[in-house]
């Protein structure tokens, strides 16, 4: 399969069998494997100036013309040699300071020596990549902000988490990584653990289905998906009011309502894919569905071979079967939610956070953390106020992180020239048991919260 990356195209076939972290050089079409470290070529006695008082920018320091360079490239000469030629034909190179020479070479290397390192997918890699390449798809959630969410949410194996995201499935993937463990190694161990130790995730989704384009980039083993549930956001209200169960009981004779819903769901899905042009995700999802479908048909084939010729019948059966499966899963998920004992809530979406957070918090057990991400501060200000009014939460904190990158080189250490302007805001807190006599207590709490911080003498436990 042909892949295009940074104006280069190549085939991945040659990369198979190498360990992660191997660096490849791109040749015309395929991949070549060079050494991990290129031996120093410019260790010859260096000549360098001390300052730039005599360097004039006349645009004529490079003796090779644009066409010459193109000719070199067309001949398929190694990038390393082109760089060497450029240096030799630069009249000012020898007058430059050692540091400037270094910089010059680095710049040229970047342009002419195309090397590619293949690494293993991880939250670190994927979140950095998404933020750099497709920030719009993840609501400008910067990777350090995602890191804060995972920590503030106390994400770990064994939790029962509720996740509501429209970040292409990146946040979901990050949560799965923290809960699921290593995506290499021994499938037998996972089997045991996915049932006992690794907990479950309920993903709330808007529209026709969850988007998991980024999730699929993680390359999780299939077992990780066993405890991943999904629940449509549009049914949250009915679930909370208690009207949900009767609507979708499996014992109901005809499920007209459900069929309608599903067709609605499908159109929704189409609309979404059009809106977000997230073709990748839908095909990805479609592929997954196809796979399961294949398995199911195989099962059916094995069960009743005589019906094989009657394709129409099979299709109908298949459809019903799938509907039934979906309904069963939905009911399972609804039951999980109805227990109202989730270990945390993570929200990172394009929607207004307040109407999401208030109902979804109902499903969370007391003394559990929740984290809401928003690209903008103002909606979180409102959310903060509404949460205070509602009660049942403490330790509310509105925060933002700044990230600074450094260049560290001998005698040339400083912060990088450009830094990211914004990576979004977080509102976090801890749930507590909601009082019955709400109004009184919230007043009390408000009073208590107003206490000046200077007075908060740390009370020491006498027995600890």
């Amino acid at each position, binding site marked *: 399969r042909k892949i295009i990356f940074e104006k280069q195209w190549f085939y991945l076939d040659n990369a198979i069998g190498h360990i992660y972290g191997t660096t490849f050089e791109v040749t015309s079409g395929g991949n070549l494997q060079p050494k991990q470290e290129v031996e120093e070529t410019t260790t010859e006695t260096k000549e360098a100036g001390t300052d730039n008082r005599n360097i004039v920018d006349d645009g004529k320091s490079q003796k090779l013309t644009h066409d010459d360079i193109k000719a070199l490239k067309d001949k398929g000469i190694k990038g390393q040699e082109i760089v060497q030629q450029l240096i030799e034909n630069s009249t000012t190179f020898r007058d430059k300071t050692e540091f400037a020479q270094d910089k010059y070479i680095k710049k040229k290397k970047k342009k002419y020596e195309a090397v590619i390192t293949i690494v293993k997918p991880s939250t670190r890699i994927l979140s950095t990549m998404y933020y750099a390449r497709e920030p719009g798809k993840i609501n400008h959630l910067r990777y350090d902000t995602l890191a804060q969410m995972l920590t503030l949410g106390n994400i770990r194996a064994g939790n029962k988490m509720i996740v509501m995201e429209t970040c292409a499935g990146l946040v979901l993937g990050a949560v799965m990584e923290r809960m*699921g463990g290593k995506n290499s190694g021994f499938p037998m161990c996972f089997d045991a653990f996915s049932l006992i130790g690794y907990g479950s995730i309920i993903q709330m989704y808007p529209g026709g289905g969850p988007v998991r384009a980024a999730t699929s980039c993680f390359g999780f083993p299939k077992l990780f998906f066993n405890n991943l549930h999904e629940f449509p956001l549009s049914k949250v209200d009915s679930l909370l009011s208690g009207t949900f169960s009767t609507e979708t009981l499996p014992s109901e004779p005809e499920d007209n309502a459900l069929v309608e819903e599903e067709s609605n769901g499908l159109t929704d899905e189409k609309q979404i894919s059009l809106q977000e042009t997230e073709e990748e995700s839908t095909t990805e999802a479609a592929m997954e569905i196809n796979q399961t479908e294949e398995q199911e048909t195989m099962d059916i084939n094995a069960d009743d071979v005589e019906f094989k010729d009657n394709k129409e019948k099979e299709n109908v059966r298949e459809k019903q079967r799938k509907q039934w499966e979906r309904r069963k899963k939905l009911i399972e998920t609804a039951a999980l939610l109805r227990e109202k004992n989730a270990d945390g809530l993570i929200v990172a979406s394009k929607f207004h956070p307040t109407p999401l957070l208030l109902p979804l918090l109902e499903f969370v057990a007391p003394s559990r953390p929740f984290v809401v991400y928003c690209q903008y501060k103002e909606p979180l200000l409102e959310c903060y106020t509404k949460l205070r009014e509602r009660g049942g939460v403490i330790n509310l904190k509105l925060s933002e992180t700044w990230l*600074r990158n450094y260049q560290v080189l001998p005698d040339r250490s400083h912060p990088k020239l450009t830094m990211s302007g914004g990576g979004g805001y977080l509102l976090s807190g801890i749930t*507590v048991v909601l009082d019955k006599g709400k109004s009184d207590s919230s007043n009390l709490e408000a009073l208590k919260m107003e206490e000046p911080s200077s007075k908060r003498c740390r009370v020491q436990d*006498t027995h600890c």
Partner: protein
Amino acid sequence: MSFVEYGDTIKDGDTAIVFLGHESMFPVKVQHGTVTQTKYGVIRHSTDLIGKKYGSKVTCSKGGWVFILHPTPELWTMNLPHRTQILYSTDISLITMMLELKPGSIVCESGTGSGSLSHALIRTVAPTGHLYTVEFHQQRAEKAREEFREHGVEHLVTVTNQDVCKNGFGVSNIADAVFLDIPSPWEAIGHAKSALKAEGGRICSFSPCIEQVQRTCLAMEEYGFTEINTLEILLRVYNVRTISLQIPDLGKAAEDNSSTGFDSSNPSNQGSPCSNLQQGTVQFKSGVPLREMVGHTGYLTFATKS
């Protein structure tokens, strides 16, 4: 309770967090027959705590009340007894993600210090991972061991009392990640490399001073680490406040005032600026930065062994 597993009810021997309000809290070891004094009165463990649900409100003797919270590494970080400078959750978050930690990871850490990072690492690598932590100060090492036992995580951590710069981590070729928070990390890079798995892994070094970072980066390069990257992360916390600003009186008539845009007769935009013309003020909600914030904790240098 355990630091690596949620429990519903408070049990004898648990470590719980007493939340007094406004970020004021402290840890308490739950024991039958003991009492804890707070500014809101006495909490009797046997009757007030044991058997209650985490997250419930507990009324103290003076009629005041507090919330009892389930311990988490983050709450512990805010409340632990300091034996050294500690790492806070902002840095810890970035460290955990950039070291690619997850359940099953094997991590080496030095020094253990007050165990702030250790608890977070253990939380993340549980239930199948392990933390090997090295602390050269004997008393601190002992104290850390005791805490891990109390917190029900001793099976996930090995505390070694030795000098990491001289003797290394006491393990080799098993770690997925190494974390260094010592005064001279460059002296431990070689040991870090041999602790990491043969197929590679990640390393992070935390240093407050740029000179330390420089020496560390040089050492990392020397030992063949790649993807060397130095970062700094700062946390900005905002107070949510309702602010009212006075409208200056320019001597104009009242009718003219209403056309300046601060129109109180427009209730449609709730939450956005609304005004109170009688008093001549405009009210709005704002996220106000704290008057003082942590400006620098340390530089985080990450690298890959491959």
